[in-house]
């Protein structure tokens, strides 16, 4: 068993799941490949086992419609498996995924995993006509980061344990709390891979431990 663990560390790139119920999971899978990880599409609770050679090293909750995600989570008993997974292993949520990770969701209120100490307001920037591409300074190394916002939510509160890696108009847009990362924009829709690389690094460091 310790040998298997050893193999994983040395030979394999991190195995990162992408929740593939709906949304732009394929774009995330491509981005993960470019960032040096092995993506696996997750549609069933069995894929979220916490131990064993088939277990995932981390998970991405993609963009899409958060109400649709929730419907499937309730229906397919995925909610429990997902809640256990995000407490144990690194997770990264973008847009709808960020909404799922929140402590509290407003506009309208809906269920969430309470995996990060953030409150999120849905569709806070308006409708599709208010979607935008902007360039923003971040705490990541390198030049300002291009950010694609599509009917984006807003992080209206971030607790003291949450590190804000970037802000737009005074509100956090890229946040980290331990092994958990969330963005209200869609790094998977840009060519810049710095955010996915950061997550792959978080996952790789967690595997080594």
């Amino acid at each position, binding site marked *: 068993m310790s040998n298997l663990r050893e193999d994983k560390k040395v030979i394999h790139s991190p195995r990162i799941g992408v929740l593939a119920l709906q*949304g732009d999971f394929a774009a995330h899978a491509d981005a993960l490949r470019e960032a040096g990880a092995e993506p696996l599409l997750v549609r069933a609770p069995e894929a979220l086992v916490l131990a064993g050679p088939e277990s995932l090293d981390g998970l991405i909750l993609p963009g899409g419609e958060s*109400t649709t995600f929730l419907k499937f989570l309730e229906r397919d008993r995925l909610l429990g498996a997902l809640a256990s997974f995000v407490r144990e292993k690194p997770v990264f949520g973008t*847009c709808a995924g960020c909404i799922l990770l929140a402590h509290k969701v407003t506009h309208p209120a809906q269920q969430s995993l309470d995996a990060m100490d953030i409150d999120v307001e849905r569709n806070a920037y*308006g409708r599709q006509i*208010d979607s935008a591409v902007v360039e*923003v300074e971040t705490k990541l190394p390198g030049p300002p980061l291009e950010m694609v916002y*599509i*009917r984006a939510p807003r992080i209206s509160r971030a607790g003291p344990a949450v590190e804000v890696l970037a802000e737009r108009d005074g509100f956090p847009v890229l946040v980290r709390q331990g092994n958990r990362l969330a963005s209200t924009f869609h790094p998977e829709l840009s060519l810049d891979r710095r955010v996915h690389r950061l997550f792959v690094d978080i996952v790789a460091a967690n595997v080594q431990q």
Partner: protein
Amino acid sequence: MAETNGNYSGATGLRLKTGLAEMLKGGVIMDVMTTQQAVIAERAGAVAVMALERVPAMIRAEGGVARMANPALIREIIHAVSIPVMAKARIGHFAEAQILQQLGVDFIDESEVLTPADEAHHIDKHAFKTPFVCGARDLGEALRRIAEGAAMIRTKGEAGTGDVVHAVKHMRQIVKEMKALTVLSEQELYAAAKEHRAPYELVRMVAQNGKLPVPNFSAGGIATPADAALMMQLGAEAIFVGSGIFMKDGTTPLDVELNAQGAPRTPKEREEAESRANAIVIATTHCRDPKVLAEVSEKMTGAMKGLAVAALDERQLLQTRGW
């Protein structure tokens, strides 16, 4: 901070438009005529709703000129749900599209289901900030719409029939023509562009990537979970369901409305609509899992009474509108 969302036609504008289409992938977009239908769609897990006054089956049965829905209805539906709201404009009717954009509709469907307003020109979709979806029966038609600024293509099928045969025909046609382009040499692409009556640059893009430069969804006659799974396996990236969820037959919707006490007026019919909406959403996500498909198909009560496309007169077809 450089704001670049004022550019509707350039690369940035198109990325924002196709970006929303990316978010809808793997989902179901449902036609709704009332706020209660919209609420049922959202609760079932639809990724968006299409606000209409009459679904295609009713337009087909009742005839007359079919126009953009009443803005008051569209506003009500926008307020009733948190998911994106789409609405249809007539082919070439850019003034209807301007009104829809003003209302805050998230996607405009320039649709052959409504009566065309222009016999030669489609809407110049680059002039709008709101993204457009357009129907297509073959690759050339899809690429002409993309050249005009469409951010999403859907197969036309034959709307309002509950017969999936032409959705299949159009999807197979587009996929086959895309595959054929990938094996052509650079110099053969010029002639291919001429044959498809499509811009060379777009034809070249498809030849290189083997797929459309925008998401490719399916519509037109999808009525059951099995239909949705079929279209997804044939290459659709998401599903539009028109008359299949809320119609009993071609003319009468299921009664899903609430009474004064807030309870369903006709519980059995509301449950039937809910069961259809749920089943099609699950079937679309789990389209390659026959076990799940069997399960949800079994749970679904009733299905729209269909109309065989083969029995329709040429003049009754909606798909031949647009060019």
